[in-house]
């Protein structure tokens, strides 16, 4: 019960500071902790390094923090679909470190799992490997990548209990589970908040140990980036 906070501002109290590193879950606009991102914006904290697969779109997701120029650096795999990002980047106001998506996901998992570095084939022979150690194992070439940790992780889940146990829904899972493990403080927003024991313990995807604070966001708005449909057969 002590983990449950009244709202996003309360859940982030005492955690935010300028120049901190923040992980934000989500892929595109799916599974993005938008309420928590909104509260980070409202706090005015700045100089952030944000680790997130994407950078939101204009007016949504991390786009909110770009508008207010609170982000100094992004560590991402893909930042298309965001004009503000392009402007700030070209003006030299925003740094970007690109990571292959799987390397990014694994670096975050490694950070949470106490693994300071690992080897992957991904990116060998490309720009991504420049300045990184490479090494042969079994005649194949690999790049050494390091674990990532953050001061704060904000994640979005479908369901959570007051112990911090979380369940994600469909492809809104994406980066949220690893990020929940890789920060000093993890704050979760959950669409459904239940009592301990109400979630089948075999189906819990993030154990409560990883979640320090939790808020109930039943009304979280869900946006669709690319609405694609098929016609019904007549």
């Amino acid at each position, binding site marked *: 019960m002590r983990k449950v906070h009244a709202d996003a501002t309360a859940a982030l109290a005492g955690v935010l500071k300028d120049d901190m590193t923040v992980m934000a879950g989500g*892929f*595109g*606009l*799916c*599974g993005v902790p938008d309420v928590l991102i909104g509260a980070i914006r409202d706090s005015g904290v700045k100089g952030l390094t944000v680790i997130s*697969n994407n950078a939101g779109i204009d007016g949504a997701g991390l786009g909110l923090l770009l508008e207010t120029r609170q982000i100094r650096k992004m560590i*991402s*795999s*893909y*930042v*298309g*679909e965001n004009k503000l990002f*392009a402007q700030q*980047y*070209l003006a030299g106001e925003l740094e*970007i470190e*690109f990571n*292959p*998506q*799987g*390397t*990014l*996901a*694994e670096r*975050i*998992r490694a950070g949470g799992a106490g693994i300071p570095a690992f080897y*992957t*084939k*991904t*990116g*060998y*022979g*490309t*720009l*991504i490997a420049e300045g990184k150690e490479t090494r042969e194992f079994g005649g194949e070439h690999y790049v050494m990548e390091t674990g990532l940790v953050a001061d704060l992780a904000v994640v979005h889940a*479908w369901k959570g209990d007051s112990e911090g146990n979380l369940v994600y*829904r*469909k*492809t*809104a*899972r*994406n*980066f*949220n*589970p*690893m990020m929940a493990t890789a920060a000093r403080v993890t704050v979760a927003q959950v669409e459904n908040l239940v009592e301990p024991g109400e979630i089948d313990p075999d189906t819990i*995807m993030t154990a409560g140990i990883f979640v320090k604070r939790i808020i109930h966001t039943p009304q979280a708005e*869900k*946006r*669709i*980036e*690319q*609405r*694609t*449909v*098929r*016609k*019904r057969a007549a």
Partner: protein
Amino acid sequence: MAWTREQMAQRAAKELRDGFYVNLGIGIPTLVSNYIPDGMSVQLQSENGMLGMGPFPYEGEEDPDLINAGKQTITELPTTSYFSSADSFAMIRGGHIDLSILGAMQVAENGDLANWMIPGKMVKGMGGAMDLVAGVKKVVVVMEHSAKAKDGSVSPKLLKSCDLPLTGARVVDLVITDLGVFSIDKAGSGGMTLIALAEGVTEDAIRAQTEAAFKVALDGSARKAA
């Protein structure tokens, strides 16, 4: 007559085998899902955390929690499973996906692939492309044979070596363009081989639009070996 986008997708679908797990990139590769032969079990992986990707939803049935790697709304199937991005790329990196079909800006005769950035232009990022080409068992590129610039100039995309930054070194097994099909001996020194021509396209027409050196083996056995 060069192949249409649909014909290129149809040709790519010939690389499917029963029981395959396949990742399809954005654009023409997505169309390949329309040509999975009846009775063949092929599961599509979406690298944002899904195996068993279904078609687009009917209007009004879109679920914001259910998108593919191109951020498009999709549906699930009885075979579907969901997992995290780390598990998804463990699947990809670990060599569990049989086939990746994706687009390209340039392919070199040794299998080098460039499809993620043009220096001097705004860089959007590589997304999952580098992981896919490094980890998937077989990589098939589907692309226009030549690049047409806005000013009307045409430049070859099958090159001796890529001049754009690479997505992966020695990663492409097969290239399907609107003019024909090329196999690449990415692990060895066999280079690139033209193994099929689009209907009505001549070897000479292809040579005129190709910088890469290539052998020709249009008989069925070579095609099969690819």
